[in-house]
Structures are given as C-alpha cells and as structure tokens.
C-alpha cells in the first residue's frame, strides 16, 4: 500500500494503540494534520500551549501505563515542548512527541521556524530522531514507542521534515519486536546479587525499604506489599513512590525527605540497612550526602544501571525491573523479629502525631491548606486520583491526603515543574475517564497553565480544580522567610478573581474561606457533572514542616512546632 508520510504517521500510531493525542498545529506539521481527517478513530486534543501538550501526554502516560503522544509544529512549537519533555524525562514517563520540521532541503539554512530540535531536546529526551527518508518513518515510530515504554521509560521525540510528510512510499508496519543493538533493558537481577542481598536483609536489625516511582512503573505493588508483610520491614516512599503501598498500612512510614515526617527521616537515618527499589537518591530525599545513612548498608535496585552508585555508595547493586527483582528475592527473605525497631519508630510516630495540625483546634475562619487536603481525603473517601503542582500545596497534599490506592498521585517530582497539575489532570482524565480526578494547584501554578481551562471546556472534561490560594508563591516565600530574613521579593502575587474567571470559561466556580465550608463545597463539586474550580482561600504565611534545610542532614529537621499555626496566624 503506497501512503504519504503523513498517513504513515497516523497508521503507525493506530498500530501502537493510540486513540488520543495532544497537540497544536503549524506550517511544518500541517500535511500530517490534514491527513488526520481520514482517521476519525483518533481524537486530537487542541491544547492552548505546546508545553501543556507534553504535560497532558505525560499525565495520560502515568495514569494509563501506556505511551502518551503529543504533536506540534517546528521551531516555536517544538521549543515550547521542552519543559514538558524535561519533566517527563526526570520522572521516567513514557511519551512520544512528533514534531514537524522544515523541509529537508531547508535544514541548516535558518529557514522560517527552523530550530535544531534534535539538538535542543537531546538532553531532555531518552532518545530522539530526525527522520531522513520516508521509508524509515514507520520503523522509527515503532522503535520510538518501544524505547519510550520499556526499560526506564522516558520521552522520545521524532522530528519529521515537511517534505517527508508529503512523500509516498510503500507502508508496511513492522510486526517483529524491536531489536536495537545498543538498547536491551535488563529484565531481572543477577541471582548472585539477589542472594547476597537476601542475606543482608535477613541479618538486618533495623532495616527500611525505600520505595520509588519504579514500583508503580513496573507494577510491583503486590510484590512490595508481600515483601513488606513477609519480612515485617517498614517502608518509606519517595514523593513519586507515594501510593505504591497503602499509606494506612501499619508498616508504611509515608514520604521521606525534605518534607517527610520526622519519624520517617529518623528511621531512615537510624537504619542499619536500606533496601532501595526504583528510586534514585535525589538530593530532596537524602539531604546532605556526607551525613546520609550513617549506619546503613545499601542495597540498590534499579532498572537503570547508571543510577547505582551515582549519589550514594552502594554495597549491593542490582540492575533489573523492580517487579522481577522483588519476585526473585521474595522466596529468599525470611520473617524477622524486629519489634524493638518497630517500637522505636512508633515512639517517634506518636510524638509526631501530637504536632499534627489536624489534631489542633483553630477558629473556623483560620483555613489552612492541610485542612483542605484532609477534608478532600475524608469527603471523597480517598477514592480519587490527584494531580498536584509544585510548591507548598504539593507537600501538604503528600502529607495530609492519605493515599491508599494505587497510582493515585501524579505530580512533577524530579523537575518540579509549576504549571504541571492542570494539563496532567486533563491527560489523566483521558486515560481514566471513570475516575474522579482532582487537580490540586497553587495560585501561582494555576496561572502558568490557565489557558488550558478553555481546552478543558472544549473537551468537556469532568475534573475538579482545587486552587490553594495563599496569595504568594508560597514555597519560595517560605524559603525567604526562613533563609532570607523575610524579604519577600517577587513572591506576593496578585490573582484574578478565580471564581469569575472560571465562570468566564463556563466552569462552575466556588470560593471557600472557612473550615466549615470545606465539606459542603467539596460535596457540591463532586455532585456537579462537569468541571468545577474551587478557590480555597487559605492562611497566607504558614510553612511546610518538617523541613530539612538545604545542606542539612536528613535527621536535622525544623520540626512542626507544637502550636505552629496558632502562633503564626496570630502574628
């Protein structure tokens, strides 16, 4: 069958199972857009800014476990993608981006809307291609999907010059599995290393498991739970590891790191063995490396060999898929008697409970972000998928929403990209149309992606947006308060009237200023079919605690004061 390059792109996407993609047209990709008229099975979502096309593809990928796809034009369209690609790269999210490029003959001539897109995106993609012959197009797309989804997933970009989109060739989609000489992800761990690891685990007196995003990506939640219950070893998660194990599980210590609970960080620092799976010892979870894990041996499991030993010296490195490695090690580990260890952790945990904001009484008109997160969790019964943006609200969501279901939180962890939550929640809605999805976002972050409210309405997506409105770029203000002598430079933030704004877009808008209004508003939003935006007016100058200051050891935290908010709010 002779097809044009444009048709080959759509035929190939269909064969990769694509039924929705996110994009924005322009001259260099126009032949491909034109051919879309012949493929009504594929739904194209017109975003309002290309960065959000990548975030939506990313949200779609994380919520579905499938590859997300985005498509944009050359030059500015492609450069607008880069933040989205970098976000997906840092968080190992498998997306494929197709970019139009100026015609082959014009490449290198600084033609209108020409950018060296493979050059620009090289460091922020897992791999990228500039297609030079229309005959290579189908094979390239086949490879791109394979690379995006396997091993450590990541974004793959395909740059297609316009002339190739019009050129014709015989279309045969490759049916054989992709075989690339330099790309063979290793599925399982070396039995010898696994045996040594099991011996260390069985001998450990104060071990902890550190679970990362790799658990969710490889679908190893059952194995993790089985491991934890069989050995009785407590587990802490990274931000992206959240919801790889139910947070109500007695052996789940919750999130570790800069804003992890004190008992969690203390347990990690006091441990004699760390069994890290599918996480990469980011500086936000280790604190000062020189003071990290003073007593612990380290077993590190990762599909990416280059992560092992990158930040933390490793005693046993195991390269392999988290699920496979856990399956391998499960028969070799034994139940351990570690009640002293667990009692010690529980003592710390009880002490932390006393400081919990939720257990303190405040006047009704003192609305705190933790109240919002707690009520959102309580009213929904936790049965929702949440996307968060970046900042204080992101940490409060991690701390105060109890994630008991799998793959329940989608957030930009590695890159910390503001403006991620709204497009990510829209992508997730396409992946999980029957899920209730909440976008939790700051008043700063929402203003980075606000044009997508139009996309939301155009696509008639039933998602709920919770703006945690504190009048500041809150997390930056927090740093200014604690480290820059309260000089609030460039952090006070003027916002539009979010309720009116929502209404301007045709979205139901609400405002909440008191604790007692929380549950009714959330309930109303849930009952409404269609998008809802709630402007939660929270106290302006509260801080996320605990906090491990930059350069501090993980156990050296600014604790949540016993009466933090009462005193702060009084000021």
């Amino acid at each position, binding site marked *: 069958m002779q097809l044009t390059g444009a048709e080959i792109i759509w035929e190939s996407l269909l064969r990769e199972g694509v039924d929705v993609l996110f994009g924005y047209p322009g001259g260099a990709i126009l032949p491909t857009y034109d051919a879309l008229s012949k493929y009504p099975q594929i739904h194209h979502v017109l975003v309002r800014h290309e960065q959000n096309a990548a975030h939506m593809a990313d949200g779609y990928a994380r919520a579905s476990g499938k590859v997300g796809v985005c498509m944009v034009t050359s030059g500015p369209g492609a450069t607008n993608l880069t933040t989205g690609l970098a976000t997906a790269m840092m968080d190992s999210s498998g997306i494929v981006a197709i970019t139009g490029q100026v015609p082959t003959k014009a490449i290198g001539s600084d033609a209108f809307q020409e950018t060296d897109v*493979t*050059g620009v995106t*090289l*460091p922020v993609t*897992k*791999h990228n291609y*500039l297609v030079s012959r229309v005959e290579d197009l189908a094979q390239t797309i086949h490879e791109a999907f394979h*690379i995006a989804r396997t*091993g450590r997933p990541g974004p793959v970009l395909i740059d297609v010059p316009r002339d190739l989109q019009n050129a014709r060739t015989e279309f045969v989609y490759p049916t054989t599995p992709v075989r*690339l*000489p*330099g*790309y*063979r*992800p*290793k599925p399982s*761990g*070396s039995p*010898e*290393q696994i045996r040594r690891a099991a011996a260390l685990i069985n001998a450990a007196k104060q071990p902890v498991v550190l679970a990362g995003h790799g658990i969710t990506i490889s679908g190893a939640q059952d194995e993790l739970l089985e491991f934890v219950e069989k050995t009785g070893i407590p587990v802490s998660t990274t931000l992206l590891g959240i919801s790889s194990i139910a947070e109500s599980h007695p052996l789940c210590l919750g999130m570790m790191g800069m804003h992890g609970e004190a008992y969690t960080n203390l347990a990690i620092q006091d441990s004699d063995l760390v069994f890290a799976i599918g996480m990469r010892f980011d500086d936000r979870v280790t604190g000062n*490396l*020189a003071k*990290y894990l003073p007593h612990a041996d380290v077993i590190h499991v990762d599909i*990416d*060999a*280059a992560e*092992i*030993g*990158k*930040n*933390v*010296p*490793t*005693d046993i*490195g*195991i*390269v392999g898929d988290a699920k496979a490695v856990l399956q391998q090690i499960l028969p070799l580990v034994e139940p351990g008697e570690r009640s002293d260890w667990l009692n010690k952790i529980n003592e710390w945990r009880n002490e932390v409970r006393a400081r919990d904001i939720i257990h303190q009484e405040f006047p009704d008109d003192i609305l705190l972000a933790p109240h919002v997160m707690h009520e959102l969790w309580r009213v929904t019964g936790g049965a929702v998928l949440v996307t968060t943006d970046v900042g204080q609200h992101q940490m409060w969501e991690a701390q105060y929403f109890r994630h008991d279901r799998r793959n329940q939180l989608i957030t930009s962890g590695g890159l910390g990209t503001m403006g991620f939550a709204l497009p990510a929640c829209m992508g997730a809605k396409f992946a999980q149309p029957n899920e209730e999805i909440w976008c939790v976002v700051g008043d700063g972050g929402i203003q980075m992606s606000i044009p997508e409210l139009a996309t939301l309405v155009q696509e008639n997506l039933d998602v709920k947006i919770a703006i945690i409105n504190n009048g500041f770029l809150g997390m930056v203000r927090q740093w200014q308060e604690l480290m820059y002598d309260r000089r609030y430079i460039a952090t006070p933030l003027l916002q539009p009237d979010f309720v009116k704004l929502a209404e301007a877009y045709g979205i139901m808008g609400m405002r909440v200023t008191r604790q007692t209004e929380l549950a009714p508003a959330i309930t109303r939003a849930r009952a409404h079919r269609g998008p809802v935006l709630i402007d939660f007016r929270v106290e302006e100058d509260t801080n996320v605690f605990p906090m491990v200051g930059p350069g501090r050891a993980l156990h050296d935290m600014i604790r949540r004061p016993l009466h933090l908010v009462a005193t702060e709010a009084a000021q």
Partner: protein
Amino acid sequence: MKHTLVALVENKPGVLNRVASLFRRRNFNIVSLAVGETETPEVSRMTIVVDASRTNAALVEQNLLKLVNVIAVQDVTDEPVVARDLALIKVKANRETRSEIMQFVDIYRAKIVDVSAESLIVEVTGPEAKLQTLLDLLRPFGILEMVRTGRVALVRGSGAYAGNGHRRNGNGEEARTPVPGADGREGV
C-alpha cells in the same frame, strides 16, 4: 589514575554529538576521545580516556550504555592492551640543533616527516608516557605547534569486541561505584 574505555557505537549521524553532550551535561572530565572506523562499516569505535581521580569511570561507562546508539562499552584499564597515541610535533631547528634533535628522534623511534630551514615536524607513536618524555626533551628547542590524536587501544589476543569481556547494555550488576569525594565516604 587514568581509565581507558572502549565504546562501540552505531556509525550514524549525530552519535559523536550524543556522546560529547553526555560528557558535558554530566560534567565528566575526559582526557581524550578518539573516534574511528572499525572492521564493520556500521560500527565506529571510540577510545575514551577518563581522569578517574575526578570522574568515576564506572559512571561514565554506565551512562554511555544508556545511549541507544552505544552498542557496547568496555573498561580496558586492567586488560592487557596495546595503547597508542600519535603526535605530530613542529619544533624549531637550525643547523646547530638539527642533529641533536634527530638523535632524540632516533632514540624514541620517531620519524622526521617534514624539514624546513627553521623547523622539523616529528611524528611519534606510542604510549602517552613515551610521547611525554620526547616532548619534554624537545621543548627546550622550541615547540612551534603540536597535535595529538589521543589514545587508541586494542585488547591483546584474539578476542574481538563481540567477545564476553564487553559489558553490554544493562549489565551494571557489579557496579560498586562510590563517587569519590561526593560525600566523603570513600569506597565501601
């Protein structure tokens, strides 16, 4: 200590850029990088010398393997290898000094490949140490210009790159790779 890595890469446009870009963005300190064809036209061979006191060679190796176009990487530092560097050295020479220079050239089994009234071009091949001593000897005469290829290396014996010695993608198991100086905990 210097580590020598040999990488076999797909002979495609842009692969050198991918490798160079990797070194830049990971802040790897590379002493030299030599690229050339191999016995297989689809495959190029890179010889990379890493200053292991500043950059963890195992991390360089693992990161190279992550590149889709990199087929295999081997750290040949502890292997019996034939390693060579080639230098062309243009050195000032006049009637009085020329014969003295030629004596050094002879001793080091180097070659004179160009002669002019005021200079000579010396071609020398060998391990870096040999090149370095010859350079030191020639320096007092005045070195006008110099170029070196960087190290290239082959493992001795009949094994070829497809042999078992090569660490292929994903086999990072034995990587016990403390990052020197990163956190004061040297070694494990």
